[in-house]
């Protein structure tokens, strides 16, 4: 499994990398939407993209619309991880094709539970 982490904050990328690495994911990092799109164009096919909204060059919302418009990446799961917390912003991201949405600040459990919800991480099997 592979995660593409897209955030202009190196610290945030590092936090997310640690969380998903513990879940067994390999990771690639990008500092903005354009860098991430370039990585996809170069052949990277991640299982999930964790996407900040506000970034230079190309924001996360634009990245989502670009990915959703291209059939090559139809199976890539898109999850916003952002400080944008208005109801309308979440609706907009979902309408553009984001599958899930986590608002910063978050706990590691929040990311893990969303990955479970998306079927990307197996849940613990009850006794």
């Amino acid at each position, binding site marked *: 499994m592979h995660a593409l982490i897209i955030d202009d904050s190196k610290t945030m990328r590092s936090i997310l990398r640690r969380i998903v690495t513990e879940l067994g994911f390999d990771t690639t990092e990008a500092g903005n939407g354009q860098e991430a799109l370039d990585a996809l164009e170069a052949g990277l096919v991640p299982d999930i993209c964790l996407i900040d909204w506000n970034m230079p060059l190309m924001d996360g919302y634009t990245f989502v619309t670009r990915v959703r418009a291209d059939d090559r990446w139809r199976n890539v799961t898109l999850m916003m991880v952002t400080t944008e917390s208005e*109801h309308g912003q979440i609706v907009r991201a979902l309408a553009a094709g*984001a599958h*899930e949405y986590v608002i910063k600040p978050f706990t590691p459990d929040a990311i893990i*539970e969303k990955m479970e*919800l998306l079927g990307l991480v197996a849940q613990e099997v*009850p006794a």
Partner: protein
Amino acid sequence: MPPAGDDGTGVISPTSFAYVADLLRRETAMLCEPGKEYLVEARLLPLARSAGQPDVDSYVALLGRDPSERAKAIDALTINETSWFRDLAPYQAFTEAMLPPLLEARAHVKHLEIWSAACSSGQEAYSLTMLLRENLPPGWTARIHATDVSTSMLERVRAGRYSQVEMNRGMPAQRLVTWFTRAGNEWEVSPELRSMVTTQHLNLAAPFPPMPVFDIVFLRNVLIYFDVDTKRDILRRVSSRISPDGYLLLGSSETTLDLDDAWTREAAGRVWMHRPRGASPAGTAARPASPASPASSASTTVRATAGVAQSTAPALSQTGA
């Protein structure tokens, strides 16, 4: 949970810990065994500070002479971190295995009564209302009876407001935007869902107050905090409040086996549904409807669509949801 003070103010002495364990045992029948000192320290240190006490031990001494601080301490010790739709499987069992036969069996009353026992801050109860709204046919009503030993938790359920951090915990984004609105820094559950939930103070270890007969009981992640005799007693009393064709869901590490032979188990995906002995297996002929009370003012007409979701995690508490 905030860490205990690292300056010694948060460290609890064996005597104080024994007092707190005994207090919890007497007031709630909950077990607080050695090894949980860190949890007691973390929960009581903020209260000690706000009460002007220099350390946790001084605060515990205060508990002996101040009933209102005692109530606050019990509240703090019985509160759990909780999340929405966690564990997925119990909610899949709810929509896929329990609802279909109950919809058939209750066709003449078109109403369901559900108990969210040890409801904590209400994430389980409201998760269930979402599933009901999405899965009940038009014209049906349902009521979630949310109970807890903590009055402050019940106030939170009634308020239906949750912080951003709480909303991040397992709430699918689509449901967030469908059922919640922003209220300052918090999110507020829709009046429609709130009207489906009633609250009642209830100590599981004590005799139950008057309650309806329930079609489904969620009693998850709470029996683990009681000793065997209390577990057995709770299960016996729950069996008197559940319809003959109803369902009981426990936490993944909990069971009725070897505790109460009034129950049988049926598998539903990855969870066990506990049922009153003699109930028809789910998906076979429906049994007569329960005497569950018809829709009340707290009930809401619901519409149908489809869906499934997830619920919760315990710490030290009767507040299991």
